[in-house]
């Protein structure tokens, strides 16, 4: 799989140290900017490798399906991408990833590379308000990469990239709904199973069973419920602007995503909240899982500017 990706994008990506599971942008190391590194289990394309490139990530370390990469992988990636201004580890809040990244960070620091870590924890279903640091990271990763990448491209310090990305994450929230499960290759059975008429709110992007199961509702009803929950967690006032990401978990077709997006646009029009730069598509998946997630990013002028910076990667190209 990874070899196929490298074969397909020889001008955009390359291996670090000949290791197929540690991928950097083709022009890495990029000097004079903070390097952004991510990683995690495979099975979530375009997360992670699809976002390696100009304006987003410097490198990604990929583990087995739904399993963290190893500390040694992360360490060698860190050394490969380091352009002299330090490295930001930016990844989802999963314990396996944390332990491997932390170990790599300790080793990198020993070798004189400055590392800072930000955990993306945008999934409001996974833990209550007030306990945000216990939340999982899901599609909000995409916005986090955008902000970190754009900020780093300005040549500022690691500390500033760290602070800016952290500020952005305070304004990013996601919620997902699954209607079928995915099967980890080699594991044989689907990770959880749903009745024909059930849906699961707040499942994890690894097929972890979610928070609650309900009878299936219409797309409009589900969307309305989800937006209510999101706005409860992240209040947005009249005339404020948000970017919206409607994300397929894999099997759910674009057709359905646009039906959902249409509903969101209607709801926000009623609330007089302006949508700026929506994204609709498959941005963070779980193999062939059917379902979708909605991510809100409450904008400011600064974040709007960053959202508009050019990016050029295998899966996202923006002028």
């Amino acid at each position: 799989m990874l070899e196929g990706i490298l074969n397909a994008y020889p001008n955009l990506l390359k291996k670090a140290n000949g290791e197929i599971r540690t991928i950097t942008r083709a022009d890495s190391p990029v000097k004079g900017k903070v390097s952004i590194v991510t990683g995690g289990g495979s099975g979530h394309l375009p997360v992670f490798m699809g976002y390696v490139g100009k304006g987003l990530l410097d490198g990604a370390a990929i583990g087995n399906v739904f399993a963290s990469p190893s500390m040694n992988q992360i360490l060698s990636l860190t050394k490969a991408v380091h352009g002299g201004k330090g490295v930001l580890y930016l990844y989802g809040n999963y314990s396996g990833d944390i332990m491997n990244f932390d170990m790599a960070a300790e080793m990198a620091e020993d070798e004189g590379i400055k590392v800072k870590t930000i955990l993306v924890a945008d999934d409001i279903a996974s833990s209550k308000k007030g306990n945000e640091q216990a939340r999982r990271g899901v599609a909000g990763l995409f916005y986090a990469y955008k902000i970190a990448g754009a900020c780093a491209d300005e040549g500022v310090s690691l500390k500033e990239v760290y602070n800016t990305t952290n500020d952005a994450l305070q304004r990013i929230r996601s919620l997902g709904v699954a209607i079928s499960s995915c099967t980890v290759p080699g594991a044989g059975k689907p990770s959880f199973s749903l009745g024909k008429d059930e849906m699961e709110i707040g499942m994890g992007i690894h097929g972890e069973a979610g928070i609650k199961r309900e009878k299936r509702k219409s797309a409009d009803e589900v969307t309305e419920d989800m937006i209510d929950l999101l706005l409860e967690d992240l209040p947005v006032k009249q005339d404020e602007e948000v970017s919206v990401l409607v994300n397929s978990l894999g099997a759910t077709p674009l057709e359905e995503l646009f039906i959902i997006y249409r509903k969101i646009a209607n709801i926000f029009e009623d609330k007089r909240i302006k949508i700026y730069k929506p994204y609709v598509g498959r941005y963070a998946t779980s193999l062939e899982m059917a379902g979708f997630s909605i991510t809100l990013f409450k904008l400011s002028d600064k974040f709007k500017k960053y959202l508009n910076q050019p990016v050029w990667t295998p899966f996202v190209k923006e002028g």
Partner: protein
Amino acid sequence: MNIILHQEDIKNIIVKLDDVFKKEKDFLNELDSKIGDGDHGLTMYRGTNAIAQYLEEYPDLKISDILIKGGFRVNEITGSTIGILIFSAMKAAGLAIKEKESINIKDIQKMLQDSIQAIEKRGKASKGQKTILDSLIPALESLEENNDETDDISTIKRMIKNAYDGAESTKNLESQIGRAKWFKNRSMGVMDPGAYTGYLILKTIGDYILKNQ
């Protein structure tokens, strides 16, 4: 009776572990699919298989290096939560017996104790949070009770039993750490796959000792 394990024994145990996780893979996946992401058995099997192969490539390592380098290889091959925890534990166990050519029951106790500490530190975890620690810590207690007057064999038997009971006890715990914590009270009733893995490892070691006493 007193126990002495040599390099050859450690290697044999690792081959046995590879067999055990091959057999138990599906059951562990099933547990993990209920309160995790369904891959724990697969990951453990990949790990034990990787280290077994590693020892074929490097047959002459001393015991501490089997553990330290073998553990590194497990993490390299599996990454994952359990992979880094196993690495941390094996590294600690290896350091606990650094230059030794053979290990006795007191060494085993020290190795398990340091492994547990390493897992607690890396995982920021403690007993009762529904993890691998919940089988390892009760097992350690039986070793700690061992003294000049007790029989090593019955200590080992108790270690296995304690590990099993510890794994079983996780059914009544709510996950508070790792992926499983997101299942909240839906994790109740299900045994923690990592705790069962802890039991399987200790049982494999123990069975080997009992059989070859």
